[in-house]
């Protein structure tokens, strides 16, 4: 793999950048793989990367119906944090956080992971109880976090209205300094380049039309471009399309795919250095390195695969942002878009074996997918390599919805993010 | 006197076994309508007399919600005996006779508005006249009626509700329950430029604030 560095840039500038290698190959698939990963989004590519690099399973293909990282990886608001309430979730997301912290160097691809801190605002007494509860749990779980009062918040976000005379005055916040944002596309591309360099075949523009299942065991996939491709194990990491794929395998999932909308302002000079989130007035905002305010809206209440939602959701979010930052009233909204989030009843993901042998699913991340990307890929890779679920993944079995061992993160996952 | 637990003879309530009480106090007791504290009366005296929107609170009326079966002829007949007019069965329609009016709210729900002092009488007569499965609930304290009119009343309403108010879609007599600002309202057209809003008590201060704001560019006239 061609090493990226400032010096490399200089060297290539002398040859007018004519000699850059491809970031990844464009291979024709083999007839058979040890592991096929369906879905070339961030999670799928991370899974492939760790399978090859950490677990030595290199005979791997990632099959993507569109282009790499073209799903929610390309559509989210790039927030990274690990301050989840319940032990199971906190450990999983903190595992991801630790990987984030060395990811650019590990991949030799700058994913611009920027630990500018994440604030979760509290506007009611119950908000503050929940914040205290979560931050205390985080501390004891080894996740950084503290509870701030309005004065401390004002120091971190001087332009936010922390006064008493708002409809829902800010009473405090939880603060995770290690949280932040990352460059979403770079994460997918960095993992893709890394996986490719370890021999993983990345098959784009190829749709998995069906799963080949022989007496209860998956043995491969059918594709629209290359016919059947055999595999010992198949991992499905297709987010919003998981239910559709599960149906082909003959089972249902406890999932509903909803539109999740987001929007950006025009680029403006830096005015906001941290990520601000509020469950109660329901909005969250950060400012990208390009200068846009990146704003997340809520989830629409209906199922939708249309990658767009309803306008009132946008209106309510913008009202929340203007309530928090009255001065943004004259800043202008540039673009809005939608992703498809596959949500579980308990707002926690499914990383699980399935009723079909050797078929594994990694889905149901709802609004929490991007921040988990390296951790999700890492534990899923471990599970696919061994054929049994990784310790951190076990609590997230799809079968918890039978025995009732749910992990209710609605509080921590309150706002879409 | 105490213990008015049963306001009507036992056999009468047998049909529904529901209790009815006269909830109206005597004249010596001060009753405060939902917008009492907005002091509309003095606004009516001192406020501007010209403007595109006029508002009046028609307060302390009897608000009765009737739930019954529109396919039960006996019940329909009973309603006519009590109110002297038939229930409007067409969706989104209303009827009015004298000081009594009926609004279609849902296939099995009607909002009946009568003078405040008549409420108990009407309730009692319903219990006398009507049999079978139905319910009659007094909500008089929970809502109030706003009469809105003026050349710009439609413009003001268009800022507040997504309902299409064009005469072709919303003729006189039509009634809808819908969202109004961030609350809800029952809107009824009583004239070309005249509407009636039934709003909930706990939202009334917010809605009063909203209506003042939405009317500002046209001028708001408060009537007593």
């Amino acid at each position: 793999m061609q090493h990226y560095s400032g010096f490399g840039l200089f060297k290539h500038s002398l040859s007018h950048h004519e000699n850059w290698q491809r970031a990844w190959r464009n291979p024709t698939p083999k007839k058979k793989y040890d592991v096929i990963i369906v879905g070339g989004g961030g999670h799928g590519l991370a899974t492939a990367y760790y399978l090859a690099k950490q677990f030595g399973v290199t005979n791997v293909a990632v099959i993507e119906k569109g282009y790499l990282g073209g799903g929610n990886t390309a559509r989210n608001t790039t927030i990274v944090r690990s301050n989840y309430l319940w032990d199971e979730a906190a450990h999983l997301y903190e595992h991801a956080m630790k990987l984030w912290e060395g990811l650019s160097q590990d991949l030799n691809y700058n994913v611009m992971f920027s630990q500018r801190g994440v604030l979760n605002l509290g506007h009611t007494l119950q908000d503050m109880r929940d914040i205290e509860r979560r931050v205390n749990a985080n501390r004891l779980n080894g996740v950084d976090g503290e509870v701030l009062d309005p004065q401390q918040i004002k120091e971190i976000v001087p332009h936010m209205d922390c006064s008493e005379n708002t409809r829902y005055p800010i009473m405090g916040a939880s603060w995770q300094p290690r949280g932040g944002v990352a460059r979403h596309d770079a994460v997918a591309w960095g993992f893709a380049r890394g996986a490719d360099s370890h021999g993983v075949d990345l098959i784009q523009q190829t749709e998995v039309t069906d799963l080949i299942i022989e007496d209860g065991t998956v043995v491969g996939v059918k594709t629209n471009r290359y016919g059947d491709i055999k595999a010992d194990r198949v991992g499905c990491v297709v987010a919003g399309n998981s239910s559709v794929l599960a149906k082909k395998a003959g089972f249902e999932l406890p999932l509903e795919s909803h539109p999740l909308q987001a929007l950006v302002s025009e680029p403006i000079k830096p005015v906001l250095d941290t990520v601000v989130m509020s469950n109660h007035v329901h909005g969250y905002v950060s400012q990208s390195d390009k200068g846009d305010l990146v704003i997340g809206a809520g989830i629409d209440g209906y199922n939708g695969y249309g990658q767009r939602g309803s306008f009132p959701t946008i209106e309510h979010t913008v009202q929340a942002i203007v309530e928090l930052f009255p001065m943004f009233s004259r800043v202008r909204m540039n673009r809005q878009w939608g992703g498809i989030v596959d949500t579980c009843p308990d707002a926690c993901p499914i990383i699980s074996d399935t009723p079909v042998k050797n078929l594994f699913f990694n889905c149901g991340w709802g609004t929490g997918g991007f921040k988990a990307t390296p951790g999700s890929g890492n534990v899923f890779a471990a599970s696919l390599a061994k054929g049994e679920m990784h310790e951190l993944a076990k609590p997230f079995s799809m079968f918890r919805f039978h025995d009732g061992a749910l992990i209710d993160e609605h509080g921590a996952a309150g706002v879409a993010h | 006197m105490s213990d008015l637990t049963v306001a009507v003879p036992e056999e009468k309530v047998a049909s529904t076994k529901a209790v009815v009480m006269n909830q109206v106090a005597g004249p010596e007791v001060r009753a405060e309508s939902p917008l009492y504290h907005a002091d509309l009366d003095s606004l009516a005296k001192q406020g501007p007399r010209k403007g595109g929107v006029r508002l009046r609170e028609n307060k302390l009326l009897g608000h009765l919600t009737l739930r019954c079966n529109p396919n039960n002829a006996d019940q329909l007949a009973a309603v006519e005996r009590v109110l002297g007019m038939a229930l409007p069965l067409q969706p989104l329609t209303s009827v009015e006779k004298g000081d009594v009016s009926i609004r279609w709210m849902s296939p099995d729900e009607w909002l009946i508005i009568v003078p405040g002092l008549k409420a108990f009488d009407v309730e009692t007569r319903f219990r006398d006249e009507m049999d079978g499965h139905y319910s009659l609930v007094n909500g008089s304290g929970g809502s109030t009626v706003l009469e809105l009119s003026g050349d710009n009343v439609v413009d003001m309403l268009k800022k507040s509700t997504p309902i299409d108010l064009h005469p072709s879609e919303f003729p006189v007599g039509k009634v809808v329950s819908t969202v109004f600002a961030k609350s809800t309202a029952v809107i009824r057209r009583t004239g070309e430029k005249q509407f009636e809003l039934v709003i909930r008590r706990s939202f009334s201060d917010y809605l009063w604030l909203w209506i003042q704001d939405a009317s500002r560019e046209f001028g708001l006239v408060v009537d007593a």
Partner: protein
Amino acid sequence: MTQKNRLQSGGRIDRSKPLTFTYNGKKFNGFLGDTLASAMLANGIDIVGRSFKYSRPRGIVAAGAEEPNAVLQLGATEATQVPNVRATQQELFNGLVSSSTNGWPSVETDLMGTIGKMGGSMMPPGFYYKTFMYPKSLWDTYESMIRKAAGLGRSPLESDPDTYDKINQHCDVLVVGGGPAGLSAALTAARSGARVIFADEQNEFGGSLLSSKETLNGAPASEWVNAVVEELRGYDNVMLLPRSTVNGYHDHNFLTIHERCTDHIADIAPAGQARQRLHRVRAKWVVLATGAHERPLVFANNDVPGCMVANAVSTYINRYGVAPGNELVLMTTNDSGYQAALDWHDAGRKVVAIVDTRQNPKGDRVEASRQRGLNLITGSAVIEVQGSKRVSGVSVAPISADGNKVTGSVSKLSADTVASSGGWSPVIHLSCHTGSRPVWNDDVVGFLPGPTVQKQLTAGAINGSYSTSTALFEGLNAGLKAVAEVGLSASEVMLPKAEEVNEGAPMTLFHIPHLKPTSQAPKQFVDYQTDVTAAGIEVACREGYESIEHVKRYTAMGFGTDQGKLGNINGMAVAAKALNKTIPETGTTIFRPNYTPVSFGAIAGRDCGALFDPERYSAMHKWHVARGAKFEDVGQWKRPWYFPKPGESMKEALNRECLATRESVGILDASTLGKIDIQGKDAREFLGRVYTNAWAKLAVGKCRYGLMCGEDGMVFDDGVTSCLGENHFLMTTTTGGAARVLEWLELYHQTEWPEMEVYFNTVTDHWSTLTISGPNSRKLLAELTDCDLSNENFAFMDWKQTTVAGVPARVFRISFTGECSYEINVQANYGMHVWEKLFEHGEKFNLTPYGTETMHILRAEKGFIIAGQDTDGSVHPFDLGMGWCVAQKKPFSYIGKRGMAREDCVREDRKQLVGLKTTDPKVVLPEGAQGVLDPKAPIPMPMVGHITSSYWSANLDRSIAMGFVKGGLNKMGEKVFYPLADGTVVEAEICSPIFLDPKGERQNV
């Protein structure tokens, strides 16, 4: 200051109305009818900004929404700053204050520019992904440098003084775009009597007709435009919306229109007026007549100020009376481009040459040029521009027929303006918003609107129909179809006669070749605003970023505030060439709302500040305010939290309220509790199905507490329900749960058990609920009612109908404090009266008003739960130690029963709610503290449960707490430790949550 580029005559500006404005601190003049851009050009302002990445000087290239460079900061005061205003869309007003956004120390002499020149070659697309990684510790420093370069304009730092309106609209036909197609569509629809909304982003209707010299019926086109607009104004079924951009096309024909009401008058709206208004439109049919944008060609140094889109040149001359230079070179691949040269020549300026990339062009405009004796160079292209802050000359060379390479020697021409035309791109943005994928058309050389499920029609240039006569005709047909669809018929509209212009075939060419390979040639810009070059796109493709989405994201093409209106197609063409694919093979380009940016204020509308969210009040709210209550937000309700006396701390107030209530009598405004009237012969059975406990035997006149669970067995609400009559109940819910519970009951009644005879109606707002509680509550109430309050007649958990203070009332003897307690319910109109009467008589008993906090303390002393505080959706009744409230023998398997029997729900070691006494009675545990059994254990520490409720109890003179502990119900007396953030560890003992009066005698006194 003189306007050196202003023509002596012509244009739609009002020369009798001069205006002054400032740009970068300098004063300039313009006229009413100018845009900021036309006025800047009139004054010979070449540089309007510096480019984002390379900091190159940039000038105005277009005349409308597609302008990528002239993006300025507006605003005379801090509070009225507006970032990123497109000068080509901003009407000039007197006193307008503008400045360029990038460039240091100034746009004229910019140091970053030199850095850009040097560093530019080190900044290929995605360079930041390839560097700034080592050493890891320096990333923060690198990033702060990157952020310095971020953004264009700046946000105001003060609150917006203006207001923004929102209005809901409904119509039969919404016509988008006021050009010839839109005008004939609107006219046709209007004459049929249909309800029409006609919107255009510009200050006047007419579209392309305003910026050309063409005639209709032999007269200037504007005459026809005026006539049509006049007629439309006369119809009351037509709403005309100039200065209104249809910026979003949403599902089921819902569109948003952004109207700028006062931006053309001043930078702050006149008193009483909204600055902008957002129209939320529901249209039965939509006619998109949004026109097309001309594509500039991609050639070396095509960003030097003076390089413009051909059509923009015509627009400035014809509409604004401005010739943006003296010596013009026009490069075109098609006939329409010639118009710029003709207009330039007719304006008396020098046309240096018309460079046509086609070998032998023919067509009316070509002929017209020849007749005017213009210098026509065919089969050639402008391969490079000279000049830095303004075009000084061009290099022209012959090119191959396929346009891929330079075939001959280069000649240089002197010029100060270069107009280019690569053909037109239909404005299909709106049709893309609802998910319709555009379709490439080789004849149009552009994307056309794709198939859609919306009730949408298109007319004119958006269909690639560029001639005025076709546009008029398609508009007419769209209008006819739309009104027919809504059941109306239109009287025939006579279309005006447009000039027939014969055009030769255009050449499909986007990227002009250079002597050197693209990678080595001077920069050839594709997307000006994001500094994306043809070479950059080639690098991206070379590196394997092959999908057009990858190319766009890797290079940032199309991510500017113009969303690539000029550049996207050119970029796709360059990528297609690099990948040996066709443009459609490379992918489509999807546009999202907004078409052009919209102020957040306009989207928020009036739902901000005091109107952000309703404040719900009880009938006694004004009294609470007068008493100086502090309020708590519970849902949308403002509930009194506590009633501090002057100078009293919160703790002092709470202690006083708690003691007074237990020692004498306190009063709580409980009106916010949800109340649902339930009638019908099956009401009782229904209660049995939605509550976990038994209801079969509850007698008339009795009350009972109930727990409500979901099908998963988890508690979601609770409250007391009273039997008013045999078939008549009054259910109370939590304040926050009221709406949810009512919908829950309706859901089950309507979808599961429709056969049950029961009706539910909310009476929450109807009743005021005044709760007096404490040993003297009976004495107090006795003074206001003649109801027999003796235990014999009126026992605990009874209710009576009576009168209180002369007001008919229902009084419920139920208690959330454990004291003898009466909940007085009166029609809310009398709430204040009764409340005040209670205080008149309550003085002697030291009647004390208390709020939610004291209510919480008093109930916690009794171990009563608060749904939502002591529950979180993951606990069932047994977890709460409330098995007593779960019926086992009810015949019907009520909601929650099966759920709480699942494997995980019957585990022994589930977290269970218990009481907790701190070893040091003075220490109050913080709510949310997490308990552990071994405070010395290493991180991550195994946690056993958290504190849900914790207070100082003045009555017990110690702290009390409730919380969850794994298997806690079997661990009475055992210790739990709470490690706090400050490093201290609080030790507490597990106990019963009933801290006071365990036998429950006080409530029966």
